[in-house]
């Protein structure tokens, strides 16, 4: 490779040559070359303060960085929780076979495609998902991967085609959900359904119709919910059959039609946060998410997501017109810093990032710190698979977060702040950057905010992909240009943080409830919730639930209310088995405890944890040992490797879970698993390690019989491929589809005869079962 030193010089010109700038430097170098050429890194070391020890250590720590060139196109298989429970692993393997990747290679021979796993693309409602460059394929199954690559090949030159497609190339525009709760039916939702069907058919729209249960808004029936795949969902209440066609046109036709929309319909409908008509190009963004189900659900209370679907993220005057910056104004004009802290203490707010540390107490610690400098960090490094609350908040309500930050900085005497967010969230990065710029121009950030004595500088810092950097001391190490190693607390960052100065680290969601508390008063905030957990919490609801999405609920709501009422229950007639709350740090709570309330303490008592707010519903077909293995493989992979218990302990627990899921378990494995889980919890240095065993401990507690079955080599749900065999029963009609599709020729081609699977050759990819029109392929 020919290295142009001038390019590097230019990069350093922009980033600076200080050692602390190593991550921005690496990001820029990778942007230039698509990977990190060794020669470039060596040159950086020659001409900057960055050492080779540092640059290699940092570059190899963060998963964003690549040391080898990659293929022309990156194929990302989402292995977030929702995709995992819907078979993402099989799809990854199938793509590997299709691209003929063997011997640990990730890039195919021609250098066209590089296959990667990503922890969450946030497209949980169309799971499982594969993304090639900027095209997202949803509802993928293993037998479709060949067609999927073909479709990409054929259309890669012409990006006109929709960016959300099925594996066969058919576009996905979205989903139309029709309420079929008893009230809806009574109010005529059947007629609505017929109207929707007719309209969709006549327009040839590639959308899916879905019946959903009661959403708890019985006074607004009948309900139709439109869920465009790349935009926020909208719920229409009191729909009449004659409205249907127009509603559908509004969402699934070119934007020009929007203007012709009848106002009459919009009375109770959510205005979209429709990127396509605001910014024009967002339709082609790789970054999109499953937006919240609806703003109108009775069970939800919006504080962090106030005016959901109503305000334009970057429209400052709109934010102001809805009460934005009133909190800050009030704080600066009428309140002393200590009074603000007192209000926050009184509100009972606790950190939304997972730990639940009292926010007011943290602010007090920082305020009390005597130091020449203090820092504020907004933690937006959300890395849980299946959690994207912070991203949604940063993308949709940047001003609210910034207002919270400004209030916090004023209250604690801080003049310099950072927003740390994942570079994998490009839309959030660009929104926050724009929002900060706009506020700087408006005099809300910078010298003498709102003409007060208070001055505050704020910068955006892009992380580089390490789950552990959600831990505050690791996050600080990362900003300092180091590997994201956490350290022992105390001292807490509030006492000694960034560059050893007192540092206030709060989660983005925490900041976003601050303006409400100041504006509306702490008593209003703490009237919501339970004795010890006040206010609301945003969750990403996903998995085996009829309506997944982002929800904001009051603390103290029960699991059942979330799953059955907000989420519409478990689809496909399956039985509700458990919820996994809190992602890799959380645990599984069984259906029989679904009446438990959600607050910091009760979740902990149940063996789960608030975590950052992932909430995955599991049904009877989900294997709990597999779920534990899934989360543990995530944490094991994300362990920073610093302390013994987490680095080796998580690996050894995973060894045992692997043995259990592949029929190689040893007699005392359950005992050792529990023992290791206990010690990893007790002995690890940071929250990642101490909470990593939770998915194991909670499933061991509530689903011990499943572990015992695995110990005997049985997987009761048939999820663990090594413990099952594929067979073809007498329903086989000899159509040969399975034989044609089998990637390893394990099924001889015998037209009109009953087919047989050679179990020696079978790789259990599930393809035959999926293609069989007679459901004659069974797992045993």
């Amino acid at each position, binding site marked *: 490779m020919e290295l142009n030193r001038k390019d590097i010089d230019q990069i350093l010109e922009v980033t600076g040559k200080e050692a602390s700038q190593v991550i921005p430097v690496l990001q820029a170098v990778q942007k230039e070359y698509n990977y990190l050429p*060794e020669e470039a*890194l*060596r040159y950086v070391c020659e001409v900057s303060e960055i*050492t*080779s*020890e*540092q*640059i*290699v*250590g940092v570059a*190899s*720590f963060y998963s964003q960085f690549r040391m080898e060139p990659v293929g022309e196109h990156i194929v990302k298989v989402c292995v977030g929780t929702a995709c995992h429970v819907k078979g993402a692993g099989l799809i990854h393997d199938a793509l590997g076979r299709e691209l003929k990747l063997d011997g640990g290679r990730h890039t195919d021979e021609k250098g066209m495609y590089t296959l990667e796993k990503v922890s969450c693309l946030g497209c949980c409602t169309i799971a499982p998902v594969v993304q090639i460059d900027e095209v997202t394929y949803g509802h993928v199954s293993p037998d479709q991967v060949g067609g999927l690559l073909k479709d990409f090949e054929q259309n890669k030159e012409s990006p006109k085609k929709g960016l959300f497609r099925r594996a066969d190339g058919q576009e996905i525009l979205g989903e139309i959900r029709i309420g079929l709760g008893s009230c809806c039916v009574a109010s005529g939702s059947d007629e609505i359904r017929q109207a929707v069907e007719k309209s969709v058919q006549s327009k040839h729209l590639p959308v899916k119709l879905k019946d959903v249960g009661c959403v708890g808004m019985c006074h607004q029936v009948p309900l139709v919910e439109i869920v465009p795949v790349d935009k926020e969902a909208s719920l229409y209440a009191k729909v009449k059959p004659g409205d249907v066609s127009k509603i559908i046109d509004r969402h699934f036709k070119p934007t020009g039609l929007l203007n012709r929309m009848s106002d009459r319909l919009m009375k109770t409908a959510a205005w979209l946060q429709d990127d396509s008509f605001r910014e024009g190009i967002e339709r082609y963004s790789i970054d999109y998410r499953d937006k919240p189900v609806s703003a109108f659900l009775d069970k939800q209370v919006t504080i962090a997501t106030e005016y959901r679907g109503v305000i334009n993220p970057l429209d400052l005057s709109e934010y102001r017109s809805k009460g934005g910056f009133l909190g800050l104004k009030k704080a600066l004009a009428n309140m002393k810093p200590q009074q603000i802290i007192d209000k926050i203490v009184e509100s009972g707010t606790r950190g939304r990032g997972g730990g639940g540390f009292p926010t007011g107490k943290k602010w007090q610690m920082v305020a009390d710190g005597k130091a020449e400098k203090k820092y504020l960090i907004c933690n937006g490094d959300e890395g849980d698979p299946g959690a994207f609350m912070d991203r949604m908040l940063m993308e949709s309500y940047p001003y609210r977060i910034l207002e919270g930050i400004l209030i916090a900085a004023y209250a604690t005497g801080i003049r310099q702040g950072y927003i740390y967010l994942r570079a994998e969230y490009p839309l959030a990065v660009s929104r926050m950057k724009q929002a900060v710029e706009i506020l700087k121009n408006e005099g809300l950030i910078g010298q003498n905010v709102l003409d007060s004595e208070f001055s505050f500088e704020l910068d955006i810092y892009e992380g580089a992909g*390490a789950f552990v950097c959600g831990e505050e001391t690791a996050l600080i190490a990362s900003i300092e240009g180091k*590997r994201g190693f956490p*350290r*022992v607390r*105390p*001292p807490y960052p509030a006492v000694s943080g960034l560059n050893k100065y007192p540092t206030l680290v709060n989660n983005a969601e925490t900041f976003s409830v601050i303006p409400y508390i100041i504006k509306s008063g702490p008593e209003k905030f703490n009237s919501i919730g339970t004795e010890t957990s006040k206010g609301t919490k945003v969750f990403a609801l996903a998995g085996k639930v009829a309506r997944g999405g982002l929800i904001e609920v009051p603390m103290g709501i029960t699991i059942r209310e979330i799953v059955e009422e907000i989420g519409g229950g478990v689809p496909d007639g399956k039985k509700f088995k458990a919820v996994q709350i809190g992602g890799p740090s959380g645990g599984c709570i069984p259906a029989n405890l679904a009446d438990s309330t959600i607050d910091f303490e009760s979740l902990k008592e149940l063996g789960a944890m608030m975590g950052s707010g992932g909430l995955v519903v599991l049904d009877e077909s989900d294997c709990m040992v597999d779920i534990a293995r899934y989360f543990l493989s995530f944490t*094991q*992979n*994300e*362990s*920073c*490797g*610093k*302390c*013994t*218990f987490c*680095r*080796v*302990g*998580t*690996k*050894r627990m995973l*060894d045992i879970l692997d043995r259990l899921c592949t029929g190689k378990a040893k007699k005392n494995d359950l005992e*050792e698993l529990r023992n*290791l889980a206990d*010690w990893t919890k*007790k*002995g690890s*240095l940071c929250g990642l390690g101490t909470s990593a065993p939770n998915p194991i401990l909670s499933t061991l507690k509530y689903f011990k019989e499943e572990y015992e079955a695995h110990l005997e080599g049985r997987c009761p749900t048939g999820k663990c491929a090594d413990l099952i065999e594929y067979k073809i029963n007498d329903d086989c009609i000899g159509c040969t589809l399975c034989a044609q599709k089998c990637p390893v020729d394990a099924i001889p081609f015998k037209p009109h005869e009953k087919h047989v699977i050679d179990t020696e050759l079978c790789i259990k990819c599930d393809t035959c079962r999926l293609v069989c029109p007679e459901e004659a392929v069974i797992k045993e």
Partner: protein
Amino acid sequence: MKKTIEITIDQVKVHVDEGSTVLQAARQLGIEIPTMCFHEGLEGHTSCMLCMVKNDDSGQLFASCSMPAATGMNIITRDEEIIEARRTALELLLSDHTGDCEAPCQPSCPAHMDIPQMNRLLAAGKFDEAKEVVMRDIPLPSVLGRICSAPCEKACKRNAVDDTVSICLLKRYAGDEGAGVGSRESGQAGIGNDFVVAIVGAGPAGLSAAYYLCDWGYRVRVYDKAAMAGGELRNPELFDRLPAEVLNKEIKLIEDKGVDFLFDQEISKDHIQSFSEKYDAVIVATGTATEPDDKNPEENKPPLPDAANIFLVGSPYRQTNMAVRAVGKGKDAAFRVDQFLNDEEIIGEPRKFNSRFGKLTAPEFDEYLKESNSDKRIEPDDPVNKGFTKEEVMKEAARCLHCDCRKLDNCKLRDYSEEYKANQRRYKSDERQLVTKQIHHNVVIYEPAKCIKCGICVRITRKYQEKYGFTYIGRGFDVQVQVPFRENLAEGLKETAHQVAEACPTGAISPHLPRPQIKI
């Protein structure tokens, strides 16, 4: 003036400067807390978690090396839970520590002879010193060099990928040609004492016990029913392989050390009874008759008086090829007597924790050959009568792979594993790291598979601003400590090699040469 803080450690109050860690406070009190990743003068890293102590008020465990002492803290540094925590940490580290402490030949030798050390000396032509090494564990090297069944050779790592080193014949050469007389330190050598020990039986076990006890300063009296020493070693079946003059020569050496032999003495149970009163200790080494049956100890009790100062040595050899086991057990009895007479815990010959990783794979053999050679095993023309020539010895000994760790005696991981009784196999996984050796350095050698990722080397090379130094590569379980940009070791460690080797708590980074000549 610096502010001080009062904290309580193990019920003792101590005042320390503000900013001190709990570890520093404990050390100020002279309380020992184990550490591996901690290194005085370097920034803390908190990796190994061995230094965990408990906050007695909250019951929480934490790493003392980085926890600042705070007023009113009440710390316990040792209880059951803390010990288990440390043992678990060690066992986790051991599960990913691929390396042998002792070379596998050594523990497989019933006399526990330091074979690699002998080989190194032989290869260097230092035959006297080689014999000294042998004699530390086997006082009859020429004899065993002719009749030993050599279980060591079966354990030789070379066995899996090539041919085993010809250890037995090498030992024979050392015994025949070396002039050394090996000493073996005991716990409290009986130098200058007045203890007299009686040994019944002048076979290989009795001779071995007599040799070491005498060496340690005990007066030793050996009784045998035969007219001369040797016991089963004089079995006619051995005549072809073991000429009488070889045996006599080595017995003479033992006699010359000052051992009294009393022959033609039929020793009965009553004699032994009276010996136990007359002598300070009695070793009964009369062969199979006195061998306790390990499987049925109750049923097969030897018909002997039961006195605290009587020590049984079984020589289970029904076949003479296990003479080495008799020699080993005799030595072990000497240790037991020594421990008994010095009021120590009777444990026999001390055996330390020993990490081992099993068979070599082909690519690993290549790594080991970096310190050895790929020559084929030498078969002497007349193995029975002549053995090896000098040239053959030096060449064959050079085939040794030197599987033993360079830090046998100064490895923290080994010492603590011994202290906390860690079980290396507890968390053993089906996969292990492949052993590699980085030898491109004139001071140190690096074996990454032994690394426990404590990062001391990274911190030292950073502190002294090595151009490359060491860095972490990757993260989590797969993290490696390497020289950046795949530069070789010599580029990585220009200034700090000695410091790094000394500070490394395992044998991962160790001095290249010389190996300890004779370990103490």
